[in-house]
């Protein structure tokens, strides 16, 4: 085989990798909430808007959900300069991920809107709830419970998706793994440790989300099945 696994040489880089994981987390969180915000606007337009704006949003969502996130970011990074818009790698990735997330989160949140059943609203009306009270006591809790699992799931997907940023030179977890690799050439060791860190991150995230879900939203998520 001519190659022995030498993990000790790579262990000193682990803190460097872990701080890279922190950057991955930042990107994921920013893109997620950005996408949630935009997605909410889109979902509202889709549910309550007029014909034209509805069609526009449909086009947007269809486009972004049928093309790869990687190529979307490539486009933003390489094609926008043609129009004079120069984005740093970090911004390009963040923008790309946000726009992509907005499309998926729009659909998820729209499903949440649609899940409100008419009789729940009627029941609230007969109890003389004002519109604000209806939203606060009936609609919001129900929506939160319905939305929490798919949103959490998408968040995990996005966390793993941040690894694409490495391709553009961003120094998040995978990007740093690239750096170490070009220095030490201990590829298998480096990327297996990187993989391990991703596994740990996602486990922690799933665990925390499960707890948050259970206590705040009464939504149940399983950690391992």
């Amino acid at each position, binding site marked *: 085989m001519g190659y022995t696994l030498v993990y000790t040489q790579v262990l000193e880089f682990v803190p460097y990798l872990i701080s890279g994981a922190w950057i991955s987390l930042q990107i994921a969180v920013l893109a997620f909430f950005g996408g949630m915000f935009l997605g909410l606007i889109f979902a509202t337009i889709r549910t309550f808007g007029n014909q034209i704006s509805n069609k526009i949003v449909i086009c947007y969502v269809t486009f972004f959900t049928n093309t*790869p*996130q*990687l190529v979307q970011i490539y486009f933003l990074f390489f094609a926008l300069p*043609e129009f004079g818009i120069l984005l740093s790698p970090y911004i390009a990735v963040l923008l790309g991920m946000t726009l992509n997330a907005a499309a998926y989160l729009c659909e998820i949140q729209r499903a949440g809107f649609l899940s409100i059943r008419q009789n729940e609203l009627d029941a609230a009306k007969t109890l003389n709830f004002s519109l604000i009270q209806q939203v606060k006591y009936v609609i919001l809790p129900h929506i939160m419970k319905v939305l929490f699992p798919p949103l959490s799931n998408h968040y995990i997907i996005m966390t793993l998706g941040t690894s*694409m940023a490495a391709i553009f030179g961003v120094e998040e977890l995978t990007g740093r793994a690239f750096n170490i690799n070009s220095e030490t050439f201990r590829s298998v060791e480096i990327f297996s440790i990187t993989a391990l860190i991703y596994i740990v991150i996602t486990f922690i995230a799933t665990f925390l989300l499960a707890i948050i879900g259970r206590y705040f939203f009464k939504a149940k998520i399983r950690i391992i099945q």
Partner: protein
Amino acid sequence: MERLIEEIPNFFTIWNVIFLAKAMGVTFLLTAIGCLVGFSVGGLLAVFRKTKSYYLLPLRFLIIVYTEIFRRIPFLVSLLLFFYVFQIMRISDNLFLIATITVCVIATAYIGEIIRSGIESINQTQWDAAAAMNFTYYQTLKEIIFPQAWKVILPPAFGFFIMFIKDTALASQIGVMELTFAAKILNNKGFSPLLSFGTILILYFILSFPLDRFGKFMERKLASNRN
């Protein structure tokens, strides 16, 4: 803008078009092979994971570990890991092979989960009735559970297929000649990035959108059949 319009005929030469068509084929092939293997092996994993025998416990444990690992690593990292392992161990330097194997391993983990979910969605009462009549575990799966579970399995499995087409874009990073890599090549050759990546986006859309529509149609049909 005029530059762009000038470039278009240069871009859409026969050679380029064939080049892109081949790349599209590679993308589709990677996805299809991955999902086919993923469905078969994933199905086996799901079947063995739900066994109750004490002796099969180590196998169940291995399956759980395998599934959890490959569903929690980014696609890119899996690809790189397999790439370097193959390189180091001198197994092969065929990039398509490496990518295909990675894709199969990942798809197996994901589709295996989908199938397992489908099996679990079948009410325990069906298992009880079968057990009371002396059906073995495998007979129950074959005669009773799978005939009911496939309706629950198919929509998410198909959804995964469609999602997977987009994930194969990452295979470009290890040099596989699929669509995204083709875009990079064209871009490097000097064509406008707008044209290169824009065209690729459209090509992915052409691959994905009809399948997406078909998937939604199929879901509606299955849901209405159930009622």
